[in-house]
Structure formats: structure tokens, C-alpha cells
């Protein structure tokens, strides 16, 4: 078994580990790092439950070798938000009743968050297209699409507020 030492940023913190070169990024995240929010639900890249961000881009971590993350940055669901400070996509999922069993939820959050970064004002059909690689067996997707729409709206509102603050020397104060 060939091993290799890798160094990467995990949710903003530097990590160095020695691991078998054939280790999947998904298994490295779950078993070596103990970050079990990333889920394993299939073995063929079909379900999206293991989605994480690699240098900001969404990847299915069962289709990536851990050594490919050497020198790069990964973000997992644990790096997205926490109790009392949910990421806007997490908050939108909760408010929209888009979470049932929760097993697909981390992957959905990662996929939607990355999609909205690139598409701040998506149409409903664009959202449905963006979710096609993430399987949910509980909700029928209706509320997940709603949540993505709501999160996009919240993101635009936030950016508008920030832009307003930046262009206003009084910092938005009357």
C-alpha cells in the first residue's frame, strides 16, 4: 500500500496527514478527519450526498482521491455554518421545510451554496438543473428548490446592503 503525506486547508485550518494514495476524499473526510456531516449514500457519484467544496468548487468527494486535495482548500458542511450562525442556504432549507431525514441535506447545502456563488439570480429551472446530481428521497425537491430561491434572494439582499454601505461614506447611517 503506497502512502503519501498531504497538507491542505480543511474549513480554514491547516491539516497534514499521511494516507494511502487510493483513499477517496470522502473516506478521508469521514474516517481520518472525523467530519461525518459529509455523507456516503452510493458508490458511483450518483447521489451527491458527499458533495464538498474543493478550492471553492463543488465536487462529489467519492469521485476525488484525497491526494488530489494536497495543497488545496476543502470546505465541508462543518465549515458552512453552526448553531446560531447558519449559512443562508442552511437557514433557507430549515425555513422552507426542505429537510426531512437530513441525509442528503449536507450535500444539497454544498451544491446550492456553490451554485448561488456563480448564479446569484437563477431561474427556477436553472435551480432544478443545478440539483440534478443530488438525490433526495424524502421531499420531492419542491421545498429544496424553494429554499434555493429564498437563499438567492437573501444573498442578493445582503449584497445590495453591502454595496449600499460601501458606496455610502456615512456607512449607511442616516
Amino acid at each position: 500500500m503506497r502512502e503519501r503525506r498531504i497538507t491542505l486547508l480543511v474549513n480554514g485550518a491547516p491539516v497534514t496527514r499521511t494516507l494511502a494514495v487510493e483513499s477517496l476524499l470522502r473516506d478521508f473526510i469521514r474516517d481520518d478527519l472525523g467530519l461525518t456531516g459529509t455523507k456516503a449514500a452510493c458508490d458511483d457519484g450518483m447521489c451527491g450526498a458527499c458533495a464538498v467544496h474543493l478550492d471553492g468548487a463543488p465536487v462529489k468527494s467519492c469521485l476525488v482521491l484525497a491526494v488530489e486535495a494536497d495543497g488545496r482548500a476543502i470546505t465541508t458542511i462543518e465549515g458552512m455554518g453552526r448553531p446560531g450562525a447558519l449559512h443562508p442556504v442552511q437557514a433557507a432549507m430549515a425555513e422552507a421545510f426542505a429537510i426531512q431525514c437530513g441525509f442528503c441535506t449536507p450535500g444539497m447545502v454544498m451544491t446550492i451554496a456553490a451554485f448561488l456563488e456563480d448564479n446569484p439570480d437563477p431561474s427556477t429551472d436553472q435551480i432544478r438543473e443545478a440539483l440534478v446530481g443530488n438525490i433526495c428521497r424524502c421531499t420531492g425537491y419542491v421545498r429544496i428548490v424553494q429554499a434555493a430561491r429564498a437563499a438567492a434572494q437573501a444573498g442578493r439582499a445582503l449584497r445590495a446592503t453591502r454595496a449600499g454601505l460601501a458606496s455610502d461614506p456615512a456607512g449607511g447611517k442616516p
Partner: protein
Amino acid sequence: MTVAARLGQSLPKVDNVALATGSARYVGDLRPAGLLHGRIVRSPLAHAMVLGVDASAALALPGVVCVIRPEDVADLPGFSLAHIKDQRVLAADRVRFVGDPVAAVIAVSEAIAEEALDLVIVEYQELPAVFDGEAALAADAPVIHPEPLDGVDGNVCWRQVCRAGDIDAAFAAADLVLRERFRTSKAHAMPMETHGALAEWDAAEEHLTLWSSTQNAHTLRDDLADTLGLARSRVRVIKPYVGGAFGHKEGLHSHEALAALGAMRTGRPVRFLLTRHEEFGATVSRNVMVRDVELALRNDGTVLAWRERIVQDCGAYASISPSVLALSEFVTVGPYRTPALDIQGVVAYTNTPPAGAFRGFGNPQATFTRELMFDIAARRLGLDPAEFRRRNLLRSEDLPGTTANGLRLQTLPIGECAERAMAAIDYDGLRRARIPWRGVGIVNMIEWGGSCRWHPGYDADTGSVTVTMAPDGSLTLGTDAADSGQGHATLFTQIAGEILGVRADQVRVVMADTDATPWGLGTYGSRTAVVQGSAAYRALTLLRDRLAVVAAHLLEADERDLVLEAGRFVVAGTDRGVPVGDVAAVIHYDRSALPPGMEPSALVVSATWDEPNEIPDANGRGSFSGNYSCSTTIAVVDVDPETGKVTVVDWACAEDVGRALNPAIVTTQLQGGIAQGIGFALGEELILDESGTLMNGSMADYQVPTSLMIPLMEERLIHVESHDPVHPMGHKGIGESGITPPAAAIACAVFDAIGVPITSLPISAEKVRAAILARVGSQR
């Protein structure tokens, strides 16, 4: 939150944060020190004798800790989800389907356990196999269970009838008799989380703990303890977060017993997680049914009688298939006036993966059969499908009342459901539009809204709740109910808020932990809101009454004058009151403040709800559910005539929910069920090759609906509220209501679009295209 949640309010799910942040722990996320990993050696043959298992090479592999062989478990009794105990922890001398467990390997890592699977050498003697329910009933078919089993005769696992009225007279009086054969498919529940279990054995305390992805902690505990020969109190089953279940995580499975045996043998924690392929190929799927119908009609469309013969394939083991057939028969004639019926069904063993419980439990098959048959009849008679149904629906003057086969109906607003669904989607406008290759299907269904009493093993339909109030007035609610995403903790929090005025942040719900929660049958059959919900209502009401006695004493008032407002007992019409927490503190700590003769005590109340239903008689007559719900569904589809592809373009459903306790949860339960039903209608099917080997056991090959396949139905999902009197909160169970109508509705819509009924599920593009070509050919 500063005020208590109430019933009827869409309280956000109380476990949202744990689920959204990934901190919720499922069985695969548990990380006990010294954990070992198990994998199951499974039969590659559909039917064979097992002559021997040689584990020496596997045991020689570094990292393998032990191998469990058939002879190690030969003395353990058989088990089953129902009464026919035809399953063994490991197939003893005979394997009966590709995937039957033969041995188990336990190793220090999952990778080593997997590597060792191929090193376990099993010697088989292959036997002839049978893969079809009807073929299995032939006189010369290989017998799959030759061992003596309760009531089993050859490959006949179970017979079930449902008979009422004078069937011969009804057929003799008919203007028209129509015959048709229907076939349903072997769909799989495919929860996102596969089955898994983790066991720990404490040898000093002689106590086993099993964390399992299950729906029924207590009955799993009982069956596991009995299988292992332990007192039931020495086994603790805990349900962690469960990633979807949909009926097929009921009862004891081999991997749970193997985890326990592995832990007892090694003294270390042992976990088995089924792979996705094992999940598809070795856990229960939906029963295939072949249904031969004869329908007796008058020329005006009046249904006079329904005669049917059903062969239901249960695969290699009975599981709960007898009950699936029974319930399917009991609801076959639906929410219609049907004076005479004669349904005779057989459950047949085959050498295929076992079938049994999957959300809907026989009703999707029955509803598909009836509603498509009705459309065939309506077309023959030149009646609009909605009008044909209207002439036969049960009416308000039939209520309250009892159907021909004994279902007791207090409320069943099917007429209102039909009107509201048709209005919501403009049914008449859709009919007038006549867009080529667009079809409209309208279907009605009846559903058990009050659980079901159909376990041949016991005359009980129970769930329990224990409420414990702490001295500060906060509440722990324990129950056998086992959430797998439905929102049970949220519902119990709302019931507590309604009855005791406690805020959500004062309530902790503990579910499905046999050392911590009271006994009950767990979660299945749309039962938790009605059964454990009603138990919670009872327990909380008893607790409120206990508190009120002391509050009245403290306030020097009459108990009958007290009202609960914002967490305080208040003397009605005054501002004199006492917080619930203060009353709880007095009860725990202060004898001098209590009414004379009352001692300080813990504040613990338990209540069980046994659903008011009955086991049907030998003719299948009786009210097996406590109440019944109904719905009308309208599907609109487009058919691509070139490819046969069916696209669902619009949907309406008016569903009798009794009373929506949390409207958003009701809606999302319906949406999720409808999505699964659309998958069942259009493509989901396990496919076996001629040797019985599963051909599509992966998520790439078994295609469940994606976000593109499901219409964004929202405003046309209508809650009809009948406020049924059977349960104290007026509601009905709705967990299975979504999945039942879609196959029927889509089949009827496709029939409308192409003019030919597709009578076998799934309604694949290939079948639709072939039907279009055949019709075109016949018109030339």
C-alpha cells in the same frame, strides 16, 4: 421562541439545526473506540444447498478477527417481521435468492472485511429456481421452503380473501362485464441511508446495546433478544438519526443479529453497514402483484360487483407480505359504493429478493388496478372518467356508516376532495383543451388514516408516551415512535405546547430507545401522529390534571375555574395565577405547600393508545383501521409520441387530513410521497436476469426521480379537514397518502393521451411507444 407552539401551526422542525449543519449522527457516523467492521458473504445462486463453508483463508488474512458460519448460528430460532418464522440469521443448509446471507466476516477495517469476502469458500449444490409468482404455484415448481412452517403449503405462503355481498347475483344482473389483467413492479424504497447497525456487548453487565437504522426499536429489541436467547430487558436498542426508512426498515434483519453476535464473540463494538448494492438486492422491495379483475356494471356506469384473483410474489421470505396482501384487498374497492366483492389472493414464494413493507403497503397496487379498470369501463360506456367516478363515490348520506367489507367510516369527504381538486386545476378546462398527446387522469383513493390492526401475531395496535416534568416545569417526552425524517419531535413539541403551554425550548423528545422510552410498536403505517400522538395527548392531559389539582390548592381556587395561559395556571377572569414551573417545584420539593395528604413526588405520566380498530374475520370483513382518509388526485402528462417518454406537467391533490396539526409538514409529507409515487409509476423497478441476479443494483442503474422529474406542486395540494372524531385531536394519518395515487393517476392520464391502457407498471417509454405503434398499426 417566547410562546408555546400550538397545533395547527407550521412550527419549523425542531431538529433542523442538527440536520442542516451535519451534526446529526446516523449509525454510520458513530465512532466508538475499537470498532470492528462486518460484511456479509451472500449467495451468488438463487437456489442451492449449502454443503460447507471454509473460512480458513479468510481467517488467515491479517486484520480479520472472526468469521461467523452457518454452524455457529444453527441453534438460533427462525425469525420474521410477521408470523411465518422462515428466516434464519444465516441461511442454514439452503439459500433461496441471490444475496441470501451465508456467512459474515468481521475485521478491523471495512476494506479488509470486503477483501475477506472472496476468501470465504462456500460449496453449493445448485437447485432449480423459480422467479415468478404464478410459475411458483405450478405443481412441478421447485419448493422453496420444504421445512415445516406455520400454514405454508408448497410455495403458497399465505391465502387471503375479502368477500361481501351476493357476488353471483350481481354478475347475473350486470349489463356489462369487463375483464382485465394488471401487473405491478418490484420497486425499492431506496432510502438515502442504507440499513446499518452497531452492537456493543458488556460482558460484565450481560447487556447488549444495538444502535440501528430502524423503525421499531422495541419489537426489534424483542425479536433480537429472543433470537439470541437473552432476556428482553438485557438488550437495549437505540435508534439514532435515520436517513429515511419508508417501511423497509421494520423489524429484525440478519445484519442486526450478526452485529450483536460479533460483539458478543469479540468483546468489541461491531458495525455492519449495507452497501448500496446489498440494500437493493437483499432488503425488502414492493411486492409484485398480478391482478385479474372482473368488473360488473350497469349501462349507466353503476358498479355492481368486483371479482379479483391476485398472485402476490413475496420473494424468498414471507416478511410481512401476508399483511400487504390483506390490506391491499381491504382497500381494493376504494371510496366507492361497491355492493358485492370477491377477492381471493395468494402470496407465493419465489427465488427472488424478499418483498414486503414499502410505504403504501399494497394500496398503490390496489389503487392502480381499480382506477385504470374504471377508466377502461368509463371509455367503454362513453362517460367522462370524473363522471363515472362521481356516480359511484360514497356520499355524505352514507356517513357515518360501514362499507360492504366492514370499514367503519365516521368521516370520508371524498366528494369535497373531488370538487376541490377539479376546481384547483380547472379539470373541465383541461378536458375542453384537447391538446394532442396531453392526457389527464383523475383518481380517488381510500387510505388507512388510523393505523392498522393486521399482525397475525398479536391483537394490539399500540404506541406509548411517557412525559416527565422536571422541577422547573420543562418536559421530557419519551416514545417508541421512531422518526426517520417525518418530524415527529416537532409534532410532540406542538402537542405539549397545546396542552401544557410549554415552549419548544422547554421540551426534549426522546425516541425509540428501549431503556429510556416506553414499549410500543414503533413507526409504520402512517401511524405515529395518530397512535403515539394520541398517547401523547392522553399523557399530557393526565399530567395537566395532576398539576391543576396542586395549582388550585396554591391559588385557593376551584380546579374547574383554572385556565392555562402562557405557561401559567390562571383563575379565569382574574389576574391571579401561578407558573407551571412553580407548581412543578412544589410537587417535587414542598410537602407543606401541597394539598393535605399529598406527598412530594416525581412528575411522570405514561399513556398508551391502542387504536380502536379490529382484526378482520375469515372473510376479510372488519374495520382494520381506526379511521379512513381519502383523496382525489389529478395528473396531467405529456407523451412524446416518438419516444414514448411521459412527462408529468401538472398535478393537483385534495387530501383529507382530518386536521392538519402542522400544515407545512403535512404538505411536505404529501410532496415526498407523490415524488416516490411518480418514480413507481414511470420507471422504478428492480430487474433480475434469468439466473435471478440483480441487474440494476446501483443508483446509476436504478433511477429514482431527480429534481427535473417532479412538478413543482405547491398550491394545488389541498388539505381537506374532516375533523374526525376517532382521535382526540381530530386528525388522520397521512404518511402514505402521497405515494398511493400517482401510479394510478399517471396510468389514467397516459391512457387518456394515447388511447391505450398500459396495464403493467412501470409505465416505461418502451411500453408507451409500443402501445402507440400497435394502435397506429391496428388503425391501418
